[in-house]
């Protein structure tokens, strides 16, 4: 049981760094609304879990807020039309993903009317069950806006016995100011969302955590809090990267660690981002699905750094252009912050629910890493690792592809915060190695599971074949026995024992009946199949007759080909059988 007060001591996590914050230009102006893009690309793959099923088709006109896909199984989230327009295509489009792979995407030609469809706010929550509210959040497409975009409803549904709900407004990465602006401007909404979250999770306490480098946000939230909310407390935590990481924030506030392979909920804590809380409030009170989010647009190549409400699906290029982006040679466009963000190779990728920052730095501002040098085992990485891992040891192991060793060194607990690579004097891209190793380990696990399934299926098949063979033999044996019995009965029937003769007759009849009972059924089925084939053939013949003679000859050709193919196959089979026999013989010989 965790109980926190505004004066309970703050704890600390090991390591951490203080990179230059540089939030200044972007966080100093109110959140803008950029002009709508002409085309939006809403990718169906925005969250973990299976791809949701589409419920629109090309050519449909959609209104703002209309669902484009259904809530999927496995708590899959739907996506919604961020504005009104016409669906021009549903194709593969570059994903907002470090891999720059493509994924199924709905392309909407925007009509600039921004016309809302029907909105149905949830109304009075007290009359609804928890299940109903969670279902509603799922249909509204609410995902965690802080990190990986995990479906919020699922996160809440999986959490039992929550003591503390942490509303994460830490935003520790340099440059990013989306949550900062949101807290300054929408503090009431955030509180409202937090309240809903508290009711849903039955959390006894709600803690809002903000880093001390955001005094305005702290002031705004404090002012909003003063109205009511006795079980809400606000904690100001010292600025240090990565305080905003879920596990680190829990450690700072409660002093507890989330045990490996467990969730925060297992120690009675749940963490939600301020953006998520606001999105929940908007969905519940205004009936608005998750259509847009605050994105920080910053970097020295952007003339007007700002935060802006950007509809999901807006191409990154459009956002940057609207803020006066001037590319330089070897331009980097980073989605996310400088520590954990990823570069994208094209400006066509759309903004997703998790895009909190578009960073287009100049080369002098964020110096590209020099060529990697040899590790000198200085241990600087170890000093800053917030998870108390041994980054340089992990690096050796990752380079040696020693995946078992990596597991033993708790690679899975690495949160990829990049603190180690930030301080590395040899500029080794440590996180890159870890990610590759993690991907390999994951791949191995999948392969292992697949091979286990394959093994089971193979063994099941072998067993089935064996069984079928035995059954066949058994059937033959029984039939033979029955025949024999019948014969014997017939032979004996001349003799005096009428009882036995009668019995034998009965048996024989029964056997015969059994046989005949089986046989006609099979025949029936066969007849049916034959009839069906005949019908199909007749139909086919009819169709073919209707077609031109050319087609006919082509069809004939095809038939001939099939025949030839079958003949070839037969020949091959004979050959193979001979070879197999030979091989068997050889095997026996050896």
């Amino acid at each position: 049981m965790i109980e926190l007060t505004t004066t309970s001591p703050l704890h600390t996590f090991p390591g951490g760094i203080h990179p230059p914050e540089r939030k200044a230009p972007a966080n100093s102006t109110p959140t803008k609304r950029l002009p709508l893009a002409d085309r939006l690309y809403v990718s169906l793959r925005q969250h973990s879990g299976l791809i949701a099923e589409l419920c629109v088709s090309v050519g449909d006109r959609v209104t703002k807020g209309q669902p484009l896909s259904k809530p999927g199984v496995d708590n899959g989230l739907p996506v919604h039309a961020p504005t009104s327009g016409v669906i021009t295509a549903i194709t593969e489009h570059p994903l907002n993903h470090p891999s720059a792979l493509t994924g199924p995407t709905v392309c909407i030609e925007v009509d600039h009317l921004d016309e809302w469809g029907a909105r149905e706010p949830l109304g009075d929550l007290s009359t609804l069950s928890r299940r109903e509210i969670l279902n509603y959040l799922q249909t509204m497409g609410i995902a965690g806006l802080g990190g990986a975009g995990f479906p919020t409803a699922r996160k809440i549904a999986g959490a039992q016995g929550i003591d503390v709900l942490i509303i994460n407004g830490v935003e520790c990465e340099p440059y990013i100011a989306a949550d900062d602006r949101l807290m300054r401007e929408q503090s009431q909404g955030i509180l409202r969302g937090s309240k809903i979250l508290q009711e849903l999770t039955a959390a006894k306490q709600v803690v809002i955590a903000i880093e001390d480098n955001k005094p305005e946000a702290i002031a705004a939230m404090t002012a909003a809090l003063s109205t009511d909310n006795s079980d809400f407390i606000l904690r100001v935590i010292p600025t240090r990267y990565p305080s905003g990481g879920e596990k680190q924030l829990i450690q700072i506030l409660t002093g507890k660690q989330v045990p490996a392979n467990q969730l925060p909920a297992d120690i009675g804590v749940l963490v939600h981002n301020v953006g998520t809380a606001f999105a929940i409030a908007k969905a519940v009170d205004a009936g608005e699905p998750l259509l847009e989010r605050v994105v920080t647009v910053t970097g020295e190549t952007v003339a007007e750094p700002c935060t802006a409400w950007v509809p999901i699906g807006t191409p990154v290029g459009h956002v940057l252009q609207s803020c006066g982006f001037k590319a330089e040679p070897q331009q980097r466009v980073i989605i996310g912050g400088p520590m954990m963000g990823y570069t994208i190779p094209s400006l066509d990728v759309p903004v997703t629910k998790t895009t909190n920052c578009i960073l287009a730095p100049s080369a002098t501002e964020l110096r590209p890493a020099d060529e990697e040098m040899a590790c000198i085992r200085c241990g600087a990485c170890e000093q800053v690792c917030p998870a108390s891992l041994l980054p340089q040891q992990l690096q050796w192991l990752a380079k040696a592809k020693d995946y078992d060793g990596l597991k033993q060194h708790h690679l899975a607990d690495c949160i990829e915060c990049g603190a180690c690579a930030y301080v590395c004097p040899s500029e080794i891209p440590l996180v890159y190695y870890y990610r590759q190793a993690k991907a390999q380990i994951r791949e191995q696990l999948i392969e292992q599971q697949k091979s286990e399934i394959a093994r089971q299926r193979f063994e099941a098949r072998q067993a089935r074949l064996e069984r079928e063979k035995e059954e066949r033999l058994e059937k033959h044996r029984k039939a033979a026995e029955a025949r024999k019995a019948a014969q014997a009965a017939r032979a004996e029937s001349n003799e005096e024992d009428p009882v036995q003769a009668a019995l034998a007759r009965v048996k024989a009849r029964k056997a015969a009946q059994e046989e005949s009972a089986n046989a006609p059924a099979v025949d029936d089925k066969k007849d049916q199949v034959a009839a069906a084939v005949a019908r199909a053939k007749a139909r086919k013949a009819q169709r073919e007759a209707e077609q031109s003679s050319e087609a006919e000859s082509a069809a004939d050709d095809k038939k001939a080909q099939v025949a030839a193919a079958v003949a070839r196959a037969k020949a091959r089979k004979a050959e193979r059988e001979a070879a197999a026999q030979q091989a068997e013989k050889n095997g026996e010989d050896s």
Partner: protein
Amino acid sequence: MSFFIAPSPHHHQKRTTTTIMRLVLLAMVPGVLAQLYFFGWGIFWQLIIAGSTAVIAEMLCLSARNRSPVRGIQDYSALVTAALLAVSIPPLAPWWVIVIGTVFAIVVVKHLFGGIGHNIFNPAMAAYVLLLISFPVQMTSWLPPVTLAGDTTSFIESLRLIVFQFTSDGYSVNQVRAVATGQLLDAVVMATPLDQIKTDLAQGLTLSESLRNPIFGAFAGHGWLWVNVAYLFGGLVLLQQRVIQWQIPGALLGTLAVATIIGSIVAPDTLPGLNIHWFSGGTMLAAFFIATDPVSAATSNRGKLIYAALIGLLIYLIRSFGGYPDAIAFAVLLANLCVPVIDQYTRPQAYGDVRGGQ
């Protein structure tokens, strides 16, 4: 114009390996100046010879290993190794001593083990041990400090001694030593303070008798005191610049101090005190510059403490009970050997590790 793809993080601290090594070299300057003042120009020539040998050896090794020789030497690590070796050997040792040592350090100890970052032993100290056991005479021929000799060999004369082993007047190093010391001491061979104590004790003298030898000044050895103070100063600069952490020098000097105090209480007649142990020989150089070599040291904070404490203890034990008067190199090498074990058992507990109970 194309987009640039790079793995995160996209921001890096400015301090590179090169910067660190350069800072180490700079921090050695006060110590080198002190040695220059007390022991003459020999140290200057040794640094020049060692440095150029190291650079050439490093470049040859790198190109033999198909790596860019120019990029390789830019990290300055070869120069640091060379400098550490050069300040450790007697200033007027023949040129081939330092050349053999440097080549051994770079080629065998560093590159045969896989280059920078892979050497399990401290290259400078491994080379020092090689030289010490191979050329015991040359490696123990220290000149008396200027405060006793009144004069040091000149700039050119020391070069002549290093290259030809004779001055322009035809004196050998030993003769120079005899002349220098003879002015004061009736041709008693001048040894380092620690050497002196070792020899005296072996001859049955007590410690206090030995300390009456003129090489011991008021506090520690003449000259040696100030050399150590200068290295201590350089080391503090490195600490302040966060190039090194306090753990290694702290644990090393601390353990040495504890051992010394216990020793002086138990056997005040034979075991010298803290002033001698800290400020004679290469203690400060070892504590701040040699043991802190990241490549061959333990990595975790706890590991560093254990590693440095081990060095401190070994220094004390070898100095007090072993065959060599100054035990830095042996202690460091022995501790280097233990580093993998230390690292293994001082692994920090990972976040959320099951052992870290609730």
